[in-house]
Each structure stands twice: as structure tokens, then as C-alpha cells.
């Protein structure tokens, strides 16, 4: 019965490997791989939970009577304890509720975004918002809009403006918000996949960065633009818990990319050679995801076979 637990273990593996994969793979491939893996693994783990719950429920006397199968055979052939079954049912319900809530919120936010995008009038393809903020973002819609604050625009020279706009155009043209939304839904179904959803947020930024780099044919320019805008926007308020515990001193001697946030990692990636396609790595990841699917299918077949046996014995 270990097969049933495989679709539950593989998402944990995916969660652990998502960040290194997002760094190594070519951004577009990484986005597609991680998003589809998140969906497939969320579906498989939901199916596995449903099967666990079903195995446990099949032992209940009234179900045996209703289904016309031997309760005795089920008891002997069924390795799933009632507690495991109940836990699975609980996790399944929780996941389903989380997905429904997340879906509703995202759909509302997207509808709001479309409404606002329709109300904005771009000049030269971008909407300039007056005010002191340092902001630039792509607002999904039909068509989507690129919104940039006037102050930020004033700070950038023409080439950096072009880099920024190319980046945001890539987000709109390739509908990156849908990749992140789908990955977040998968992570709502199975919280082990949260690192995968975060990795997708990162790879769509990298995708847009690489697009901007190819439009401007200057990787360094894009890196410098990101750096300038990020430093202009300033640092966010931080939780001081780490400092209070003395884990992160205010003057850490060394900094490394290993624990860095997305912006320095994006800049570092642009300052190195462009990413290459990694066919073997992609194939290996696909095989592992497929294993989860096959395991779920085999487990379902086993349950079916067991139920048929129990019906025959009665």
C-alpha cells in the first residue's frame, strides 16, 4: 500500500527542489514545468487522499451492506487504519475549501484588475500614475496595461525605460498572472507545494527579464535597471524577530545568494551567461511527476480489485 503514499511524498520532494530548479532551468521551461507539476501533483495528492478515505470508509458496516460486498474481505485486505482514513478525509476537505476560497479571491481580483485596466488610458503604451511612489507593474486585462509611476519614469533614462517596459510587456503578452494563479491554487490544495508556487512567481519574473534582455539585447542593462528600481523603491519593513534572537546581526559579514530574495537573484542571473535548455533535467522531473500519477492510478485499481473480490466472496 506504499503506492498510496507516493503521491503524498512526491509533492514534498517537489517543494524541496523547486527553488534550485527555478534557478537552473531556462525560465520559460521552468515556469511550464513547475506550474504543470504543481497542478498534476495537487491532483494526485487529492486523489490519494480520496482513496485513503475511501479504503477506510469501505470498512464501515452500513457501506458494506449498501454496496453488497463482504466486510470481512475488506477488513483483511485493507491496510488503511480508520484514523488514517479520517485524517485523509479531513485533509481532503481542508484542501477543497482552501482551493474554493483561493479561486474566488483570485477571480474577484482578476475581474477588478480587468475593470481597472479598461478604465485606464495609456499614452505611448503605458499609464503614468502621478505621485511620489516608485512603482511599476503590469495590470492584467483586455488589453492589459503597464502602469508606471511618474517619479520612477523621471528617474530612468530612455534605455532603462525600454527595458522596464519590455519586462512588463512580457508579463502581459505571456499571461504570467495565470501561471502564478494556477500554481497558487495547487498550493492551496496541498501546502507542501507552496515552495513550488513561490518558485513560479520567481520564474515568471526571470522569463520577463530574459525577454527584456533579448528585446534590448543587453543583459547588463536589464540587470542595472532592476537594481536601480529596487534600490529606489527602498527596503521593505522587516520583522525584527531574527535580529532580536541574534540570528541576523545588522552587520552580517558575508552575503550569499543562497538565502537571497528574488531581486538579487534575478540581477545575478542576468549578470551571468544566458540560461541553456536542460533537456535531461526537464525529462527527469517529468518522469517523477508522472510516477505520482501512475501510483495514484495503481492504488485506485487496487481498491477497485479489492472491492470486486469482496463482492465476489459475499
Amino acid at each position, binding site marked *: 500500500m506504499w503506492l498510496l503514499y507516493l503521491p503524498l511524498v512526491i509533492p514534498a520532494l517537489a517543494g524541496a527542489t523547486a527553488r534550485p530548479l527555478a534557478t537552473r532551468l531556462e525560465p520559460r521551461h521552468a515556469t511550464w514545468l513547475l506550474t504543470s507539476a504543481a497542478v498534476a501533483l495537487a491532483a494526485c495528492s487529492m486523489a490519494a487522499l480520496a482513496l485513503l478515505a475511501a479504503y477506510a470508509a469501505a470498512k464501515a458496516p452500513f457501506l458494506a451492506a449498501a454496496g453488497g460486498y463482504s466486510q470481512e474481505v475488506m477488513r483483511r485486505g485493507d491496510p488503511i487504519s480508520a484514523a488514517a482514513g479520517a485524517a485523509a478525509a479531513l485533509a481532503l476537505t481542508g484542501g477543497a475549501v482552501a482551493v474554493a476560497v483561493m479561486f474566488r479571491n*483570485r477571480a474577484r*481580483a482578476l475581474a*477588478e*484588475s480587468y475593470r*481597472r485596466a479598461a478604465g*485606464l488610458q495609456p*499614452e505611448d503604451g503605458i499609464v*503614468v500614475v*502621478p*505621485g*511620489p*511612489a516608485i*512603482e*511599476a*507593474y*503590469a495590470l492584467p486585462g483586455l488589453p492589459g496595461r503597464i*502602469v508606471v*509611476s*511618474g*517619479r520612477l519614469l*523621471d528617474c530612468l533614462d530612455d534605455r532603462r525605460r525600454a527595458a522596464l517596459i519590455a*519586462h*512588463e510587456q512580457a*508579463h502581459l503578452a505571456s499571461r*504570467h*498572472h495565470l501561471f*502564478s*494563479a494556477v500554481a*497558487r491554487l495547487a498550493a492551496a490544495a496541498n501546502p507542501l507545494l507552496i515552495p513550488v508556487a513561490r518558485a513560479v512567481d520567481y520564474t*515568471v*519574473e526571470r522569463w520577463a527579464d530574459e525577454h527584456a534582455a533579448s528585446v534590448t539585447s543587453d543583459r*547588463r542593462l536589464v*540587470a*542595472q535597471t*532592476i*537594481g536601480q*528600481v*529596487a*534600490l529606489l*523603491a*527602498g*527596503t*521593505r519593513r*522587516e520583522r525584527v524577530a531574527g535580529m532580536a534572537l541574534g540570528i*541576523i546581526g*545588522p552587520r552580517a559579514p558575508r*552575503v*550569499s*545568494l543562497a*538565502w*537571497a*530574495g*528574488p*531581486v*538579487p537573484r534575478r*540581477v*545575478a542571473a542576468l*549578470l*551571468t*551567461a544566458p540560461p541553456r535548455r536542460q533537456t535531461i533535467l526537464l525529462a527527469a522531473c517529468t518522469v517523477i511527476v508522472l510516477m505520482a500519477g501512475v501510483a495514484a492510478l495503481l492504488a485506485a485499481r487496487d481498491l477497485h480489485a479489492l472491492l470486486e473480490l469482496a463482492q465476489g466472496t459475499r
Partner: protein
Amino acid sequence: MGGEGPRQAPGVERRAAGALEAEILAILREADGPLSPGEVRQRLTPRPPADEGPQGELSYSTVVTIVSRLHAKGLLARQRAGRGFTYTPLDDASLAASRMAQVLLGSENDHDAVLSRFVSGLSSRDARLLRQLLAGDTGAAGADPRPAGEQG
């Protein structure tokens, strides 16, 4: 601002910034269409003869600074015109719309989730790392593409 040179005509550069902003805003409101900073400057200073000449008038860059400030405050809209910008005052409806957009800019909830921001927030560690990366980039001129702060 105080000691900008002995030859400056009194009463022109020394006008308080607030008064200048109000005057420029009034000029733009009375204008038929968008104005460039140069046009604003022409309308701004029909001064007494004593004030004529390059020292007597507000400098072009001062006008540019003030209209940029008004734009940053959300009181003026601007349009690209050639290499510079022209400015128009925002009417009440546009002001409301720009405030709407501001609300969107500042929101931290689900609406935020569908936006693709150019940069996300930096921690102070990230900021330090970023400075190192960029400094290493300009300093080493591509000799070593690896970030300066990464030593293993």
C-alpha cells in the same frame, strides 16, 4: 536657495516655491491646451523691464523642477512631446481616477496578487547584496561574472 549670486534680480527667484507652484498651476488651468515648461516660462514672467535678461527670469530648469514637482504631487498630467513633456492640469474627474490608481498602487491584499510588479520588496540584506552585485559588475567590467559577495 538664499545666496545664488549677487546679480540676481530681487523678487523673482526669491518668490516662495509655494507661490510659484500656485502661479504655474493657474497658468496651466487658463491655457487652452497642454504647455511645455518653456511655454509656461514665457507666460510666467512678463516682468518689469528691470527684470529682463537671463538673470532676471526664472531659469528653464527651475520651471521644469516645479512642474515635475506638481506632477509628482498628482496635480498635473503630462504627455510626451518630442524629447520632453507637456503638462495639463488634472480636472476633478482625473484627480479621482488618479487617486483610484493610487489606491491600487498601495494595496496589499488579493488585488495585489494579480499585479506583476517590476521589483518586489528588498530586505536590507538583499539591498546590500544587490549593491555588491552591481558594484562588482561595473568594477570588474565583466572579468568575473560571479557576484562579488559570493565566496563559496
